[in-house]
């Protein structure tokens, strides 16, 4: 029940946020003072994107379909957040580690894992990160995180990891 309540709250707040946004995006200069009377409420919307950015940054895993290095839409926000982080902090460096499930040839999987890592790197560079900030490496199917021999384990192992250096 508690989970359900939470879910409802999230949905509701989501809806509210959704409603609040379009008017804001309307370029009606006269209405801007309306924001000023409630300065305490300003940090709230500002904090929301920040916390989203933070939570996206704690997410370091990009998952793939079998024999695919295509970046799924659901992971693009994570990659975008890390790309922004690298752009905002030029001293940061990451290694992207490509991994594969245990099926198929080790050598082909090594190449596939490399392509998975490289596709993440390419998107980050497109978004402003520097080439020198990103290294890629493939472990192929050699370092599986999940040790089972089933679809659940395989899905977990078809993955790129974003690893910050000096972490």
């Amino acid at each position, binding site marked *: 029940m508690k989970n359900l309540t939470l879910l409802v709250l999230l949905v509701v707040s989501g809806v509210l946020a959704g409603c609040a946004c379009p008017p804001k995006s309307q370029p009606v200069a006269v209405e801007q003072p309306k924001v000023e009377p409630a300065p305490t409420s300003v940090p709230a919307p500002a904090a929301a994107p920040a916390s989203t950015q933070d939570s996206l940054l704690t997410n370091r895993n990009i998952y793939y379909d079998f*024999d695919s290095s295509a970046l799924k839409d659901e992971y693009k926000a994570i990659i975008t957040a890390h790309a922004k982080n690298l752009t905002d902090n030029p001293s940061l460096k990451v290694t992207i580690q490509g991994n594969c499930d*245990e*099926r*198929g*040839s*080790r*050598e*082909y999987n*090594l*190449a*596939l*894992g*490399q*392509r998975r890592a*490289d596709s993440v790197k390419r998107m980050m560079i497109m978004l402003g990160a520097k080439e020198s900030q990103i*290294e*890629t*490496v*493939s*472990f*192929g199917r*050699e*370092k599986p995180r999940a040790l089972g*021999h089933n679809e659940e384990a395989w899905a977990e192992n078809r993955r790129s990891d974003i690893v910050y250096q000096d972490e």
Partner: protein
Amino acid sequence: MKNFSCFLHLFPLFLLWGVSCSSANAQLKIEIIGSGASQFPIAIVPFKGENTLPQSVTDVIAADLQRSGLFKIVDSGGLTTIPVEPPQVDYAMWRTRGADVLAIGAVSPLPNGQFDVRFRLMDILKQQQLTGFAYQVNAQQLRRTAHKIADAIYEALTGDGGMFDTNIAYIIKNGSRYELKVADVDGYGARTILASNESIISPAWSPDGTMLAYVSFEHKKAIVYMQSLETGVRSVIANFKGSNSAPSWSPDGKRLAIVLSKDGNSQIYLVNLDSGVLTRLSISGGIDTEPNFSPDGLSILFTSDRGGSPQIYRMLVNGGNPERLTFDGTYNVTPRFSPDGKSFVFVQRNGGHFNIATQDFVSRQSQLLTEGSLDESPCFSPNGKVILYATNEGGHGILSTVSSDGRERTRISVEIGDVFEPAWGPLIKD
């Protein structure tokens, strides 16, 4: 042929199958299940004097021949006298026991501490010698001598080259420890070539059997090394940014085809081992990997997903457009030429299963040889008659063999642990 009568029985059967299949469907795969019924009956008499040795020679010979699947070992127990020379052979008695050929021999200690090992292979029907050899070896060479005798018997009866006096390389994983090992083909005498806490893959024998190239992840990335089996000395062949992998020796041993991702996608390059000069061989927008030199050194088989899914292609070493060879299914990988260059073995995905198959270059017909769930890393024996591969049994990696006609299968449990990435070495030269 040399008096191998069971082959005569098999030939008409193959011809019939070939005709019926090709007329029905050019792409039809012949799936053979089970093992061959026709086996050549051979009796191997315990060699005189071998009972005083720490290691029976004839036990090793019999195990080799039996493992090939082509031979039935006829009981040679209960003999009142052990024949050593041809005049001592009771041919009628061996015919009654059902043997067509008979191996006899003796092991005698020499004053210098070595042993004299001699054997003869007798045709029981014609009552004449087919082949015979004598060796002077030390005690540590007795197993190898037994493998040589098994090869001599195999060659005399089949007309094909031998395969028993050979080594295999493989990786064994125990917990987090990986070891690259080399062992006799029957699993004896395993020795560690490299031990690491990170994975090792793709061992490849130099054509003369003195070196192994392989990929080690010991520095947290794939790097290609080459190592002398005699001295243990090794060198880095390729350590560029990205992945360095999939070594394959040219037949003359002077070049290695390798795969590098330094310029983007994984592509095939050629390294001249004398000069170190690197030449890019493949140019595609996809993954090109798993190169394998043809026996004549002129072409290379490889895996590429340039067409949307991983398939097997062939290209000339000197350039030219690669030709796609596999079209069935969406996942065909790990091509390896047969030693005669007339066919190749590869891994084919069938539904959720990965199996070993061969394809003939002329007929383009492929034949599925195995039915495990995760069969991989196939390679031919030096004589092309047997395919060694890795598979999974009860969640553990093991090695298996299947005869290149798909009739005979064995499993090779080398040690405890996960065993994978087998590579069959060339016949050992003296």
